[in-house]
């Protein structure tokens, strides 16, 4: 059973979103996603200052099995990419909701966001996907 913290919101493409106190949002991939990918060997995060559109591929996570794009669930400007992942990609496997965060975005005011799910809805999605 995947770990799905109740205080986060989720996308259909298995990203999680956490709104921080300063108004930025932190984005990562879910426990289910890291498990499906297997051992991660390389993570490419976006540079600060980059403008990303809703649904734009903005990070790459590469495991021993596959390389996958991570899609931005909100439009905004990158406030930070997680610098620790270059040296420690396994943080994504070990701590997907903590040390394994991918990037922080300053959302564009009034911009559309992807349809974000509650933890309960994401759990249901995982069940229908047979996870």
């Amino acid at each position: 059973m995947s770990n799905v913290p109740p205080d986060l919101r989720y996308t259909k493409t298995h990203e999680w979103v956490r709104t921080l106190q300063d108004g930025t949002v932190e984005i990562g991939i879910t426990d289910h996603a890291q498990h499906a990918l297997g051992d991660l060997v390389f993570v490419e995060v976006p540079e600060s200052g980059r403008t990303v559109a809703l649904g734009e591929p903005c990070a790459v996570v590469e495991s021993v099995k596959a390389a996958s794009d991570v899609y931005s669930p909100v439009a905004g400007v990158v406030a930070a990419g997680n610098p620790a992942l270059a040296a420690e990609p396994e943080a994504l496997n070990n701590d997907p909701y903590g040390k394994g965060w991918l990037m922080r975005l300053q959302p564009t005011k009034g911009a559309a966001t992807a349809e974000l799910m509650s933890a309960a809805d994401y759990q249901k999605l995982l069940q229908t996907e047979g996870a």
Partner: protein
Amino acid sequence: MAFIPHTSADVESMLATIGVSSIEQLFDEIPASLRVKSLDGVPVALNEMQIGRLMSERARADGHPLCFIGAGAYEHHIPAAVWAVTTRGEFYSAYTPYQAEASQGTLQLIYEYQTMMASLTGMEVSNASLYDGASAVAEASLMAVRANRKSKSLRILVPRTVNPQYRRVAVATAGNQGLRFEDVPFATDGGVISLDALKKFEGEDITALVIQQPNFFGQLEDVDALTDWAHAHGIFVIASVNPTSLALLKPPGEWGTTGKGADIVVGEGQPLGVPLSSGGPYFGFMTTRMEYVRQMPGRIVGRTVDLSGREGFTLTLQAREQHIRRAKATSNICTNQGLLVTAATIYMSVMGPVGLERTAAASHARAQELVSALTAVKGVRRAFAGPFFHEAVVLFDRPVAPILASLASRGILGGLDLSELYPELGYAVLVCATETKTTSDIQSYVTALGEASAAVRAA
């Protein structure tokens, strides 16, 4: 090894299983308008004796001209051991082996090749090769777009001192992917990239600058100043180099004064043990720094250990490649030139660093001798001042095509006529000499040039 192991009984059994009467029927869904109706242009099959005779006749028709043409492909002595080993059955495949358990020999050879190329170019990592020097420049440009994350423009500066064929291949390969390849003029006195001409790009978003060393004219570029200029403006440096010359010249990994060096190094591998062979097959090489390895196209062989801790070799970093990443792969060229790389690896092993250096030094000395001898002829002079490696541009006082034709009829390929590629140079010929040319060969050229000029004047 039979590459199609099915017997006709196997084929019939498979067809019967799926309920199809013939192999041809499998292609029924392709509309008739798209089918090739016949292969009229293909002559009937010949037996071994007939094909041997035909090929000998064709080869004889070429004669054995003394070749003073370089321009991207160079005649070097190839020790007999190189192709004797390369043509062993165990090496006989153009492809990179996926199956590590069945391909340790080939994989180790490619690993050794990568180590040699990284060392020769002064870079940290090499791929297992690309198709040729021209497509390597195209692939390097695409890689620069991915790796230079500060640049969004997709603009690649390709100075006119870069081989014009490389530019054409780059445009054909990457032009439709939005890359723009822009000219930079050369200084007419030195035949090298003009730093003044580069200044007009300052303050603009440029992705990469291609620097060919030695350049198409054989001249040596001021690679340190060019590299520093590019890096000061956030521009990637793509070095396109002749591998033989690297035995004498500074490796691209050390270009510039900041210690950073070129970002991507490519080149034509043909001078390393591959015969001229009417223009191919050759192979391209590519090296870079570790920080960009995930943006590098092509196969990479890595060294690892098996479960028992024994050393072994295998393809690595494959998540960049098209069989995994599909359309988002670093390249849709995911093979290499295995057989040519085999020859190059054995060539480099046989020559060693000292042998390669002596080849480069001898080629340079012969080219100097050639240029001195030609420019001693009345009406012939050098086009550019400054140092050159093993080829140079000489100017004639009259159109060169008839003179070159007359030389060819005397068994001498006198150089490449540049009048179409570089009309502004006038009656210009690019001439080359490597270690394969002797003093008497050069004298034969000069003598024949006198006869050819007289014949052309008389005509």
